[in-house]
């Protein structure tokens, strides 16, 4: 079973690293990088689901009978775009936060809020 599933497990490890960073990191930008890793690994997970042994890219071609599953690819195309859109928004937020607070560290943010 392990050889069959190792691929997923690798992905999961990667995913969890990202997740961990998101939770633990105090620096807002690093949080986002963590989030990005988290999401990307989910994409990989999907693509792995779509992989077919000995299949080739799902573009019609002569002499190819087995194609990989196009559906996950489509979903992930969408998901990637969603991800990058989220990132853009998040970074814009960070920029504004930096401007308003003068820092992008969670601790400092909180204490500065307490002060005012």
């Amino acid at each position: 079973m392990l050889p069959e599933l190792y691929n997923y497990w690798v992905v999961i490890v990667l995913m969890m690293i990202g997740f961990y960073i998101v939770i633990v990191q105090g620096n807002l930008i690093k949080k986002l990088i963590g989030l990005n890793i988290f999401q990307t690994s989910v994409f990989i997970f999907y693509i792995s689901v779509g992989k077919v042994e000995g299949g080739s890219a799902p573009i019609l071609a002569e002499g190819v009978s087995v194609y990989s599953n196009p559906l996950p690819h489509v979903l992930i195309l969408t998901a990637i775009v969603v991800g990058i859109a989220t990132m853009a928004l998040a970074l814009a937020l960070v920029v504004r936060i930096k401007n308003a607070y003068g820092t992008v560290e969670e601790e400092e943010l909180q204490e500065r809020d307490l002060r005012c």
Partner: protein
Amino acid sequence: MLSHLPILQVIVPLLAAPACLLLDRARAAWLFACMASFISVVISGLLVFQVHQFGVLSYSLGGWDAPWGIEYRIDVLSAYVLLIVSGIGALMILAADTAIRTEIPSERQPLFYVLYLLCLAGLLGIVATGDIFNVFVFLEISSLATYALIAQGRDRRALWAAYQYLIVGTIGATFILIGIGFLYSLTGTLNMQDLANRLPALESSATAFTAFAFLMVGVCLKLALFPLHLWLPNAYAYAPSIVTAFLAATATKVAVYLLIRFHFSVFGVGFAASVLPLHSIFLVLGLVGVFVASLVAIQQPNVKRLFAYSSVAQIGYMIIGIGIGTVTGLQATLLHLFNHALMKGALFLALAAIVFRFGSADIRHFAGLGQRMPWTMAIIVIGGLSLIGVPGTVGFISKWYLVLAAFERDWWLLIIAVLLGSLLAVIYIWRLIEVAYFREGEGEPRGEAPLSLLIPTAILALANIYFGIDTRLPVYLSDSAAQMLFGGGP
């Protein structure tokens, strides 16, 4: 054209948004947005009627039948929620023009309306679609719009709140995405109906269980179910008042809808019970949520925050309703969806009026408000009574059904707990009333809020009373929806 209503419901606001950007003048954008949202109300009304007439409406996009194409599927439940969301959305946009005048600089206002419409469209899309991945896409549309909207609050903490919400929300969405991935790898389909047909065979599989778990956690993050509620109070407290009002009245409702949809329609009632004691978990979390949140609410100096916590508590009630696990319980939840939208809508809009006058919703501004803004305060009182559950208001109806459901189960402790919960509500409402009516206001006197803000608020407040007396519509819809959900698939 009538046959296209399901999709029109979503694309009218969806396409109105970019058109709104083209206008690029606040007033024009506002009028346009009003038009679009009122059209969508009409559509949702027609949809309710159609569903009532012909039963479930299925609309296959691009002409590809499910499961190959994306299907829009309107049953009683979705029609009901669509009605709530679009109705509230329209009322809020009415008030928006005045409400944001003081809160958002003029050159940003057109963009504000664009985002508002996008958010509305996203929420409607989540409810209307019958395709589980499509849910994810529209969830993100509404979420992104929401983050941006929240960040528009004047207090810089709004930015921080928006960021937190963004992180939590994205994690939630990703969890849902993972859940979908598992489901797909297990069944090879994304259509809810199709899933519902294929899942029972795989009930025992660990993958199905994991998918279920991830979907539930993801939704509960969005739903701000205790203890995952931490993002909500800040977001509601610092967002522009109108945004708060809109979100409080719609976003959480849609999240509850998703919960119910996944739980009952996709996986089926039996599933959860077979793999884990979900209902008892819901009961416990709901109860704890009600009490903790209410207790915290009592100590809040900022009234917006106070009602934000009370929202968390109310969500607790809805979850309890699901946790009871009977038709009546579910009906109580559905009723509370409707009723809570009305009361919180009225309350937060009233707060918007107060913010409009005082610049913040701090409780010290409430001193002497009974004389200064009699109408606004009267509305707050009505909303408060409704929140407590006094007969003659909608709050009573939902409480009534909740207690009824508990009674059918002979869970006296639960009944007592629910009633105690309402007593906590009495306490924090009383705090407001006391300050507003029994304390002299200091500072220069300020007048009543402008009519453009007051009228929508009043409409909502009256709705609180009207639907507390004439309960036929919500009771009928929620009843048939609950019946259908327990009868099986969507």
